[in-house]
C-alpha cells in the first residue's frame, strides 16, 4: 500500500499546537516502521517556517525521494483565485504520486478543489487515528489498514468509449509508417473512437477516409482537449514534421518507428541545428557536431529527449528500441509488435510462384535471391553482392535483385550481369517479387532503432530469410530466420546462401516457420492490442507527466498570470526529461586564478561534460545572485567551442544530482541557500571533499579564513547527501570527525573516495628557464638535492626542513634544498629566512613561480622529493615524483602512505634533528641504490581519475557509511 502523508497541517501556523504535534508524531511513527508499506510525505514548499527543519526530521526516517514538495503560485496578495489554483496544484501533486491512501493532517485541511474527473484516492484524517494506542490496543498501521477496508472504493473509470486523436503519415504517403498505420487502424478501432489528423485530408486513401473522420492538422490545437488519448507516430523522416511540432504543446503517447531521430531534428531545426542538437543531446553531441560535422553528429545521437520530454509514454517495436529510449531519458516506454503489411488478412493474396515469375520475366529454374526495401548503405549492398557472387560463382542460374528505391548513391555494382535494382515498385510488383523469390536476404548496419517491415513481408510470404543479428533483427526467433552474426563476412553470407540454395526442404521449413511467426506475433490484432495496452498504461501511470497535463487543463481558466502558474507547476513537477548531473563550477567560472582545486575542477569537468552517459545529461552549474545557473558560456570556453545557448536557470530539483566539485569554502551565502532550496526540491548534493584541515587544524590557517571555511565545510557536511573524498585517508578522517562529534550531522552519510589524476609530463617543452631556475639546476647537477613543491604554508614543514638542512650543512654535508612554491600565509618569518639565508643561491634555492616546464626539469634534476607536510588531502607532488621514478622522503602520515602505495622513505618527528638524520640516511641509501620507489610507476591520468569519480558518484556502492547513534528512549 502506498500512503501519502500530507503534512500541511504541521506547517500551518493557524493549526493548534496539539493537533500539529500529534500529526507530526504519527507521521514519524508511520514512516519509521512502514511495515512493508510505502510512505511518501507531501510538504508545502511555499511555507517557509520550519520547512528545512521538518525536512531534516523526515529525512531521518524517509529517503529523500519520498519527501515531495508542492508549490503554490507566489502571488503578492493571495486571493480566492490563488487558493483555488494552489489547491489544484496540491491535488495534482497527490495524483502524480498515485497513492492508495491519502492521510491528511486533519479533517479540515482537506484539498478543497478536487476536479471530479481526476482519480481520487481513499482519504483519511490523521486526527481520526489519534486514539492512544493503549486504548485501542492496536498499532497505527493496524488501525490504518482497518479503516481503509471500510473506506469507499476508488472512482471507476468512465464507461464511454475513449476518443483517440491519431497524428502520423497515412497512405498514399510513400513511407512504410503510413502502410503500417493503415494495416493496424482497423484493429485499433476496437479500443477507441479514432480521428485522423493529416496535413491534407483530401489526399488520404479513400478506404481510410470512408472509415474514419479525417481532419487537418491545423485544426488539431483547437480540438486537442476534446480527446482522451493522443497517439503520435514518429520516424526519422520529414513525413513526421507535423506530429513533431504538435506533440510539444499537446503531450500524448509517441509510437517510435526509429529511435534515432537526428534527420528529423535537423529538418525541424533548419539553420539552428547547433542549438537544437545541444538542446537535444547536450555537450557531447555539440562537440561531435563541431569536430566531425552534421552527418556524424546525427548518426551518433538519437535526439529523442526534447521530443519525448513531456510525453505520457513511448511505444517501440523491439527490446533494442526500449534500451535506446531508456538511454535517452526517463520517459516510460512499452514494446508492442510491428503490424504486418502485406501478409495481413484482407490484403490481396500473392500470385503462384510460376505466374509471378512469368509476370517478371524470370525463368522458372533460376535461383532468385532478393533484398527487399530501399537500397541504402545501411542495407550492406556491397556485402550482399560479394556474398552472392561467392555463393553462386559455379552456377550461372542465379540472380540477385534489390527490390526498392535506390538512395544515397549506394548503387550495387551494376557491371555484374546477375545483379539488378528495380527502383521503387508498386505494391502489386512488390507482391510479385515476394511470390517469385527463392531466398530473401535482409542485412542491416548502423541501426536507428527501426524494425524492418521488409523482413516481416518476406517472412509473411513464406520466404526463407537470411538476416544479421543487428539492432532489432537480433530479436528474431532463430528458428524462423537464418540469423548471421552482427557483422557477417562475405564468406559467411555465401555459405548461408549455398546451404539454402542446395536444400529445398530447408528453404520450405524455414519459410513456413517464418510465416507462422509473423502471422501470429505480428498480426494487426496483436499489434493493436499491444498499442492499446501501452497507451492505457501510459495514461494510468502515476507520473508528473499525466498529472501536469491534467493540472494545466484545470488551471487554464484561472485568472492568475500564466508565469506565476507556470512557476508553481514547474517547481512542483519539474520535467527535464532526463536525470542531470550538475557540476558546480561557481568559483572557477567567476574567477580562475589557477589554484590546484580549480585545476582539478577544470580537468574533471572537461571530461565529464564531453563524455556520453546513457540516461543522464551532464551540465556545469554556477551560483549567481541566489540563482543556480547552467554555466554554458564557461563550458564553451573550457571546451573551446562557440557557446550553443546562453546561461539559463538550472531549476534543479528531483532527479538531479549536484556535484560540488569546486572549492565550496568560498560559496556565497546566497548560493548556499539556493543549493539548499534545490535540495529541498529533491536534488541530491554530492560534495567533493579535498581535506578537513580547516576543521581539524585551524591553527594552520589565518583565523578569519579558518573560521569561515570551517563553518562552510561544517554546514555542507551537515546537509549534503553523499561525500566523495580525494583520498581514503580524508574519508577516514571525515568518518572519525563525524563519530567524535567534531562535525555534526543529524542523519546518515555515505562516504567514498577517488584519486586525483596527474598529467604532469616530464618531457614538457616550454620556454627557457628563468635565471634562478638555471642556477638551481646547476647546483642540483653538482650535489645531491631535495626538492620541496608547494606553497609555503605553516603546515608544509619548510621551517623544519630548513633547520634540518642547516644542521647538515654545518656538519659538512654538501647538499641542496630547492623550494618551489610561492609565499602563502602566516609564514613571514620562514619566507624572510629563506630569502635572506646565507646559503641562498648556493645550496638553498627558493623559486616562487616555477612554470610547468621548470617543475619538470627540477623533478628530473633532483635526487628526490621531500614531502614534509603535516597534513594533506592528497599530495600531488608525490604522485608527480613517482611518475618519473624519483625517490621520496615523506613524513609518515596516512595520506602519503596511501598515494605512494608505501614506496617512499619515511620520517616522523617534528624537530630538525630527526629530519636531518632522515635526510642523511636518504642520501646514503640513494648512493647505495637502495631507495624504494626509484622505478617510474603508472599514475592515474585525468581520464581515469574522472572515470573513478564518475563510477563512485553514479554506479558503485559507497564504501563507507556513517550513521548517528540510535536515539535514547523517552524519559520516564
Amino acid at each position, binding site marked *: 500500500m502506498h500512503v501519502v502523508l500530507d503534512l500541511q497541517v504541521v506547517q500551518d501556523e493557524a493549526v493548534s499546537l496539539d493537533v500539529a504535534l500529534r500529526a507530526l508524531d504519527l507521521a514519524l511513527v508511520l514512516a519509521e516502521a512502514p511495515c512493508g508499506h510505502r510512505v511518501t510525505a507531501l510538504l508545502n514548499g511555499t511555507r517557509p517556517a520550519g520547512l528545512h527543519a*521538518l525536512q531534516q*526530521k523526515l529525512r531521518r526516517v524517509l529517503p529523500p525521494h519520498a519527501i515531495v514538495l508542492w508549490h503554490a503560485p507566489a502571488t503578492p496578495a493571495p486571493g480566492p483565485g490563488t487558493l483555488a489554483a494552489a489547491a489544484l496544484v496540491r491535488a495534482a501533486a497527490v495524483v502524480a504520486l498515485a497513492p492508495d491512501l491519502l492521510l491528511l493532517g486533519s479533517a479540515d485541511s482537506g484539498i478543497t478543489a478536487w476536479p471530479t474527473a481526476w482519480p481520487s484516492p481513499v482519504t483519511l484524517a490523521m486526527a481520526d487515528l489519534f486514539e492512544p494506542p493503549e486504548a485501542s490496543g492496536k498499532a497505527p498501521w493496524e488501525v490504518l489498514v482497518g479503516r481503509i477496508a471500510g473506506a469507499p472504493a476508488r472512482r471507476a473509470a468512465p464507461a464511454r468509449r475513449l476518443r483517440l486523436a491519431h497524428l502520423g503519415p497515412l497512405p498514399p504517403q510513400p513511407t512504410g509508417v503510413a502502410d503500417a498505420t493503415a494495416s493496424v487502424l482497423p484493429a485499433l478501432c476496437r479500443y477507441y473512437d479514432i480521428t485522423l489528423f493529416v496535413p491534407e485530408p483530401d489526399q488520404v486513401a479513400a478506404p481510410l477516409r470512408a472509415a474514419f473522420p479525417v481532419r487537418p492538422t491545423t485544426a488539431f490545437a483547437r480540438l486537442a482537449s476534446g480527446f482522451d488519448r493522443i497517439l503520435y507516430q514518429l520516424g526519422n523522416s520529414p513525413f513526421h514534421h507535423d506530429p513533431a511540432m504538435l506533440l510539444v504543446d499537446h503531450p500524448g503517447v509517441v509510437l517510435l518507428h526509429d529511435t534515432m531521430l537526428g534527420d528529423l531534428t535537423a529538418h525541424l531545426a533548419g539553420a539552428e541545428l547547433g542549438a537544437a542538437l545541444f538542446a537535444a543531446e547536450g555537450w557531447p553531441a555539440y562537440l561531435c557536431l563541431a569536430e566531425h560535422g552534421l552527418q556524424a553528429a546525427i548518426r551518433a545521437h538519437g535526439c529523442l529527449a526534447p521530443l519525448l520530454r513531456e510525453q505520457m509514454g513511448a511505444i517501440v517495436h523491439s527490446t533494442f528500441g526500449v534500451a535506446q529510449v531508456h538511454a535517452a531519458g526517463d520517459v516510460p516506454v512499452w514494446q508492442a509488435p510491428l503490424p504486418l503489411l502485406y501478409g495481413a488478412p484482407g490484403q490481396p493474396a500473392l500470385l503462384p510462384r510460376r505466374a509471378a515469375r512469368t509476370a517478371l520475366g524470370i525463368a522458372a529454374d533460376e535461383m532468385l535471391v532478393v533484398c527487399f526495401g530501399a537500397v541504402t548503405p545501411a542495407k550492406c549492398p556491397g556485402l550482399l553482392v560479394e556474398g552472392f557472387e561467392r555463393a553462386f560463382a559455379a552456377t550461372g542460374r542465379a540472380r540477385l535483385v534489390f527490390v526498392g528505391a535506390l538512395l544515397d548513391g549506394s548503387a550495387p555494382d551494376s557491371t555484374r550481369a546477375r545483379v539488378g535494382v528495380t527502383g521503387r515498385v508498386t505494391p502489386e510488383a512488390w507482391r510479385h517479387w515476394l511470390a517469385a523469390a527463392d531466398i530473401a536476404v535482409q542485412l542491416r548496419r548502423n541501426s536507428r532503432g527501426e524494425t524492418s517491415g521488409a523482413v516481416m513481408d518476406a517472412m509473411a510470404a513464406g520466404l526463407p530469410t537470411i538476416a544479421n543479428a543487428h539492432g532489432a533483427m537480433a530479436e528474431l526467433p532463430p528458428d524462423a530466420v537464418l540469423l548471421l552474426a552482427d557483422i557477417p563476412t562475405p564468406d559467411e553470407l555465401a555459405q548461408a546462401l549455398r546451404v539454402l540454395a542446395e536444400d529445398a526442404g530447408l528453404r520450405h521449413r524455414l519459410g513456413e516457420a517464418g510465416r507462422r511467426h509473423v502471422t501470429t506475433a505480428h498480426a494487426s490484432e496483436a499489434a493493436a492490442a499491444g498499442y492499446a495496452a501501452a497507451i492505457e498504461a501510459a495514461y494510468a501511470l502515476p507520473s508528473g507527466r499525466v498529472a501536469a497535463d491534467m493540472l494545466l487543463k484545470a488551471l487554464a481558466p484561472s485568472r492568475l498570470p500564466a508565469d506565476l502558474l507556470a512557476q508553481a507547476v514547474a517547481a512542483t513537477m519539474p520535467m527535464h526529461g532526463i536525470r542531470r548531473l550538475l557540476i558546480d563550477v561557481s568559483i572557477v567560472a567567476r574567477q580562475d586564478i589557477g589554484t590546484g582545486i580549480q585545476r582539478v575542477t577544470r580537468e574533471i569537468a572537461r571530461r565529464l561534460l564531453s563524455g556520453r552517459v546513457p540516461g543522464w545529461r551532464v551540465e556545469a552549474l554556477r551560483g549567481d545572485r541566489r540563482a543556480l545557473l547552467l554555466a554554458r558560456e564557461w563550458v564553451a570556453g573550457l571546451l573551446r567551442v562557440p557557446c550553443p545557448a546562453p546561461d539559463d536557470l538550472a531549476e534543479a530539483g528531483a532527479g538531479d544530482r549536484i556535484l560540488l566539485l569546486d572549492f565550496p569554502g568560498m560559496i556565497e551565502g546566497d548560493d548556499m541557500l539556493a543549493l539548499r532550496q534545490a535540495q529541498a526540491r529533491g536534488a541530491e548534493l554530492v560534495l567533493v571533499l579535498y581535506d578537513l584541515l580547516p576543521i581539524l587544524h585551524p591553527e594552520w590557517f589565518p583565523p578569519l579564513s579558518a573560521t569561515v571555511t570551517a563553518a562552510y565545510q561544517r554546514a555542507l557536511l551537515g546537509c549534503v547527501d553523499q561525500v566523495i573524498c580525494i583520498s581514503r585517508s580524508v574519508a577516514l578522517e571525515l568518518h572519525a570527525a563525524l563519530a567524535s562529534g567534531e562535525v555534526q550531522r543529524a542523519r546518515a552519510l555515505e562516504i567514498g573516495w577517488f584519486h586525483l589524476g596527474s598529467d604532469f609530463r616530464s618531457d614538457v617543452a616550454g620556454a627557457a628557464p628563468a635565471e634562478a631556475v638555471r642556477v638551481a639546476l646547476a647546483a642540483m647537477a653538482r650535489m645531491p638535492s631535495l626538492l620541496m613543491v608547494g606553497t609555503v604554508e605553516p603546515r608544509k614543514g619548510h621551517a623544519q626542513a630548513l633547520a634540518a638542512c642547516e644542521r647538515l650543512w654545518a656538519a659538512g654535508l654538501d647538499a641542496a634544498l630547492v623550494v618551489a612554491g610561492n609565499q602563502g600565509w602566516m609564514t613571514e618569518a620562514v619566507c624572510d629566512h629563506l630569502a635572506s639565508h646565507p646559503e641562498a643561491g648556493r645550496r638553498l634555492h627558493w623559486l616562487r613561480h616555477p612554470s610547468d616546464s621548470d617543475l619538470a626539469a627540477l623533478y628530473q634534476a633532483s635526487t628526490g622529493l621531500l614531502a614534509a607536510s603535516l597534513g594533506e588531502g592528497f599530495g600531488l607532488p608525490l604522485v608527480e615524483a613517482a611518475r618519473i621514478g624519483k625517490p621520496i622522503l615523506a613524513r609518515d602520515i596516512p595520506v602519503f602512505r596511501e598515494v605512494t602505495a608505501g614506496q617512499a622513505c619515511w620520517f616522523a618527528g617534528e624537530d630538525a634533528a630527526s629530519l636531518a638524520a632522515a635526510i642523511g640516511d636518504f642520501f646514503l641509501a640513494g648512493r647505495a641504490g637502495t631507495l624504494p620507489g626509484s622505478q617510474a610507476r603508472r599514475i592515474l591520468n585525468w581520464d581515469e581519475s574522472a572515470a573513478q569519480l564518475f563510477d563512485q558518484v553514479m554506479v558503485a556502492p559507497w564504501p563507507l557509511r556513517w550513521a548517528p547513534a540510535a536515539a535514547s528512549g523517552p524519559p520516564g
Partner: protein
Amino acid sequence: MARARAERLSYAYRVDRLWPTRVLRLSLYVAIRLGARLPVWANMAAWNAHRLPMLHRPLSVAYRRSLRPYPAQPPQGVDHAGPAQRRIQRRLERLRLTAGLG
C-alpha cells in the same frame, strides 16, 4: 560585510541545530523528574520537542528569514524563468488561447 554575512550564517546554523528546543526539552524533562504533573501534551512535547519545528519559531526569526522563499534573481541577460517553466507557460498560454481565454 563578509564578517556580518558569516555571523548571520553561523547564527542560522546554530539555530538549525535546534538549541532552543533542547533547552525547552531539558527544562520539561527536569520538571517531570522533579515530580511536576504536566498535561499529556506537555509530556509528549518534552520528548518530541526536537521533532517540532514550531516550538522554536519565536526564537528563530533570523533563521526563518534566511529561508524565506524568494524568486531566483538571475543576473542581467539571463531569463527569469527557467526552461521547464518557459515550456509550461507556453503550454498554458496555448491552452488558454485555444479555449478562447487568452
